[in-house]
């Protein structure tokens, strides 16, 4: 797996649980036990109430495409093999909007409001990155 050339996420102490969970094929969302907010991306402190009484909930792994953009050029060399890349913002029913790629999908088949589901890709031995793909009918 050491042939992974793309940048890996810069994992922070307060996001480590998220990236540990993706290795178990779970998508965690940070949750504030004081003000009941669902938080994405993970922070050290709740951005709503500044509490550090934070926990995690497991998301269902479903979402809908809020917007997308198919990138054909203008990327660094390490991303060129992946072109075209379908960039997407996906709304999760748990509240947060996240940034991801839609994979296992042709560029002409992606659309706004399309239902998608999480899919996990082993990047290196230590890092599993969540992507989304069209919900299989």
């Amino acid at each position, binding site marked *: 797996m050491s042939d992974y050339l*793309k*940048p*890996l*996420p*810069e*994992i*922070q102490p307060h*996001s480590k649980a998220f990236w540990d969970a993706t290795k178990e094929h779970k998508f965690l969302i940070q949750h504030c036990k004081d003000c009941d907010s669902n938080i994405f*991306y993970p922070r050290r402190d709740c951005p709503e109430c500044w509490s550090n009484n934070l926990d995690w909930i497991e998301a269902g792994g479903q979402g809908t495409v*809020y*917007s*997308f*953009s*198919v*990138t*054909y*050029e*203008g*990327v*660094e*060399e390490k*991303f060129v093999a*992946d072109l075209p*890349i379908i*960039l*997407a*913002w996906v709304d999760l029913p748990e509240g947060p*909007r*996240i*940034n*991801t*790629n839609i994979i296992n999908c042709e*560029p002409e088949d992606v659309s*706004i409001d399309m239902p998608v589901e999480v899919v996990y890709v082993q990047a290196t031995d230590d890092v599993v*990155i969540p992507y989304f793909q069209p919900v299989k009918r």
Partner: protein
Amino acid sequence: MSIAVIGIAEVPTIRDPDRTRWDILLDVCMEAVRDAGIDKDDVHAVISPNPMAQPAMANDMALGKVPEVLGMKGCRDIAIANAGGTSNTNCLRIAKSLIEGGQADFVLIPHTTVQSDIPSEDLINFFATAPLDKQWEYPYGVTFNGSMGLITNRYMHETGATAEQMAAVTVSLRAWGALDPNSIFYGKPVTLEDVLNSRIVSTPLHAKECNLLADGGGAMVVTSHEIAKNFEKAVYQLGHGTRFMSATPFMRKDLFHRKAYRESSTDALAQAGLSINDMDVRQIYGAYPYTQCSALEGYGVCDEGQGAALWAEGRCGPGGDLPCTTMGDATGRGHTGSGVSMAFYLETVRQLRGEADDRQVPNCEHALLTTSGGSVMNTCTTIFGRSPR
């Protein structure tokens, strides 16, 4: 009490690695001071926008080389401001504070940028990683163009703006740029077909709707309203409002910045005692075409979702009844990093002085200018006028 611009200078936006950062810098500093008609030793402070992706030049500017090299014996202090596209806005704010605090009569704000000697791979990396999140965006191949493509796609989805209407924005911006000797596109207008037939970079953005990174520089001399009354060519700041949204685009609730445009312009206009209908020109620095549309919606020039139609009808381009963005924005002029907003301020001064030649808006007395930094993290709206209030 507020500030006024009394001297300006600019070098043409081009790509030429033989024109060095320091050559640009020295030229614009000397020309702006001469344009103001003051002595170099009258400059009490040099406040510089951070030259993005150029760390050696940034260090020179941050640590005082500019007044030293130019022998500005009256200089009391220097500062550098880094807020991406709003760096120059922050320079004006620092200048205002020094002037109002009695520490400076005249402040010089110089910008220089050379990107043509930086490998394109490094520039893509800089513009992808500087404003974007290295954990939640960069690993997914998000670029600056991709990020703006995501916003533009949603804008078109919600408003029903067509690809032809969006391309018309670039046609008008390039039409302004074609009239501007300081634009990299001087004498080079494009047609709707040119835009729509150019390569797709990140849907829905075509290559001609994205930015050509280039070299440039400019400078302003600012002073107080009171002192400016002795300077015939002075242009007066009449109001300023600002709103922050988010660093990261996908976190943004006000995705098209309409609320931020509305609130920042409302504050600025109230200070100026003017309304949006008093503005003779609207200068919108957004660097991507959708901002030229959503800004007009936010200002209340048109209803939500109607901005693209105004551009498509030719009303915002040369000869239109709602002239906007007469320096062409980054897409119509070339992107000089933190220098685009400098070029916006300089063009606004030219319009109000009546020195904008073929781009001159008739009887231009009041101008609204909005700058934005990062991935449109903020909207900083300033009202300028030919006379003080």
